[in-house]
């Protein structure tokens, strides 16, 4: 322990902080418990989880993974992406295309190759970019590859020309808006305004079946857990410390000889892939993907989740994703006309009152209490929270 923090190589499991363990344990418990309570417990049992709730919780987990992906770039590298909804939607579309192909001749028009909307548009053959999506493995590859490639190409140009801060945020908004407009067009071949829906089954299992819903929920829990571990691996490595260095003093990092744009490109692409996976798990659980997912407001909402949960903490982002969406479910049912005001108010309140988010604030209080009660000057553990994000905006 000669040099304490940052030294040596620590196995991944030892690099997980307390909050991370809580997240992983909750995910394991929920991943097993929720399907069990749905499948095994009788309906009259107070512990029975109805299927609609399984799907709803599964949706929250997808949002949590999406929030995690934004926290990775925003919390640790200062890249305030206001376009992550686009990566989520692209992953969702890739999954949706597979599910459309799985419908086969069971569609309204009974065409074995063409999805209904293409028959409706009088198309006589499948566009080339739909080829391969009948294969599950191919679709899964595209779920990661399409958002990843877009992020890579977009990031390549943006980071190489050193677009940072609010300018980068604006062009990410423009990116998702451009995709929104493109996907609205019927000619694009993605179902236009209506998007892709009426899915029947996945890997041969009916999407309406309770067991399939449970499996999708469990898959979402696994994806979130693995995604968390991947992010944690990155941020606790030396590369993670370089990312924080870029966030806090970009030119210093550059003059130390680091290719800042490579680090940004790496983390942005990883993050986009995670967002794509979240979208792919989201689509079969909600049963539809349409261009609305590209709406710029969606991407901004994700940033609010992260800010509420606690930027730069990973598990806080996941928590924010679940909490804010729970609030959204509740309030859009109870007082639908008020929700947007509440969301806006929430963002302002968090920015003003809890600039570190829920988790960051709890950590702060915890630290104060610990210092008050322990006079011993113990050193911080080797792989504690890497570095709290500075309060406030992206820069």
């Amino acid at each position, binding site marked *: 322990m000669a040099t304490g923090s*940052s030294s040596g190589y620590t196995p991944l499991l030892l690099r997980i902080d307390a909050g991370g363990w809580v997240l992983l344990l909750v995910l394991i418990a929920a991943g097993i418990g929720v399907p069990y309570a749905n499948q095994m417990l009788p309906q009259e049992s107070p512990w029975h989880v109805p299927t609609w709730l399984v799907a709803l919780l599964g949706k929250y987990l997808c949002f949590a993974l999406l929030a995690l992906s934004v926290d990775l770039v925003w919390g640790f590298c200062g890249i305030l992406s206001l376009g992550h909804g686009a990566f989520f939607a692209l992953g969702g579309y890739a999954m949706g295309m597979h599910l459309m192909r799985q419908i086969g001749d069971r569609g309204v028009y009974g065409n074995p190759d063409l999805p209904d909307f293409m028959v409706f548009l009088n198309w006589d053959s499948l566009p080339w970019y739909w080829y391969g999506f009948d294969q599950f493995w191919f679709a899964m590859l595209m779920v990661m590859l399409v958002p990843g490639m877009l992020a890579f190409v977009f990031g390549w140009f943006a980071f190489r020309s050193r677009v940072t801060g609010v300018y980068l945020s604006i062009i990410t908004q423009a990116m998702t808006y451009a995709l929104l407009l493109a996907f609205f067009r019927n000619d694009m071949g993605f179902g236009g305004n209506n998007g892709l829906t009426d899915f029947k089954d996945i890997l041969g299992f009916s999407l309406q079946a309770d067991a399939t819903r449970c499996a999708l929920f469990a898959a979402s829990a696994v994806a979130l857990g693995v995604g968390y571990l991947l992010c944690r691996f990155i941020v606790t490595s030396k590369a993670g410390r370089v990312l924080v260095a870029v966030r806090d003093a970009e030119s*210093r990092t550059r003059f130390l*000889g*680091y290719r800042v744009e490579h680090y940004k490109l790496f983390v942005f692409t990883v993050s986009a892939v995670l967002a794509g996976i979240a979208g792919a798990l989201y689509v079969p659980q909600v049963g539809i993907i349409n261009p609305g997912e590209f709406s710029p407001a969606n991407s901004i909402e994700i940033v609010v989740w992260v800010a509420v949960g606690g930027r730069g903490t990973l598990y806080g982002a996941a928590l924010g994703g679940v909490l804010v969406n729970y609030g959204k479910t509740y309030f859009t049912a109870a007082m639908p006309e008020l929700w947007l005001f509440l969301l806006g108010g929430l963002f302002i309140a968090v920015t003003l009152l809890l600039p570190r988010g829920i988790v960051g604030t709890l950590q702060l209080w915890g630290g104060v209490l610990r210092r008050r009660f322990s006079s011993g000057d113990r050193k911080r553990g080797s792989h504690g929270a890497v570095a709290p994000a500075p309060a406030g905006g992206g820069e």
Partner: protein
Amino acid sequence: MTTSTRDKLSTSILYVNAVTVSFDGFKALNDLSFTIDPGEMRAVIGPNGAGKTTMMDVVTGKTRPTSGDILFNGRVDLTRLDEASIARLGIGRKFQRPTVFENHTVLDNLELALAGSRTVKHSLFARLSGEARDRLDELLTIIALTDRRHQRAGALSHGEKQWLEIGMLLAQDPDLLFLDEPAAGMTDAETEQTAELLKGIAGRHSIVVVEHDMAFVRSLGVRVTVLHEGAVLAEGSMDAVQQNPRVIDVYLGR
């Protein structure tokens, strides 16, 4: 002339020849030429707007010169490289305002600066070798921050941040160091300590110190280059340049 130029070129670590930088017609550097010898410490002074910062910008790759040559070690053309490549070649730079990674510990700051591979792939799986650990301990001793190694750099005093940044430059193990006002905002005691620190590391590295503080420059006891309007006005010992009528003219007003 040609032979002496050729000589200078092959023996000096930094060779700046006829460099001009113009921003919209304004010449921040105007036909600037100077050389730095290996192991030399040089002080650069000059009134505001003389081109001191621009001079560092062109050498470290932040700004591209409009014309002129900058050669490192007699062969590498710095005008074609970006900041990261130049840093990897062995040229370090300290900013005027101390710039350290405030959310990292002192030790992490030094570790990030430590010479070695800078690629993403390497740093994802990097572990600290015993050798690197020893080097970090050595650096901590040099900059007198051993006791503060686990503290957040943001919690350091202004002077300590300056030292940490100098330590980070040393960790890069550069051949040539540019220090922009290393004594700015320091107490007298800290300034004195900084001068000692620099004298201690000179010889192994070539150092260019840009400074406003004349007492500090004098205490370094090295050759001084005076810049004015983007060009060298005078060069020599501190006493010599202070008696130079052109320098007096520039400093005491026209």
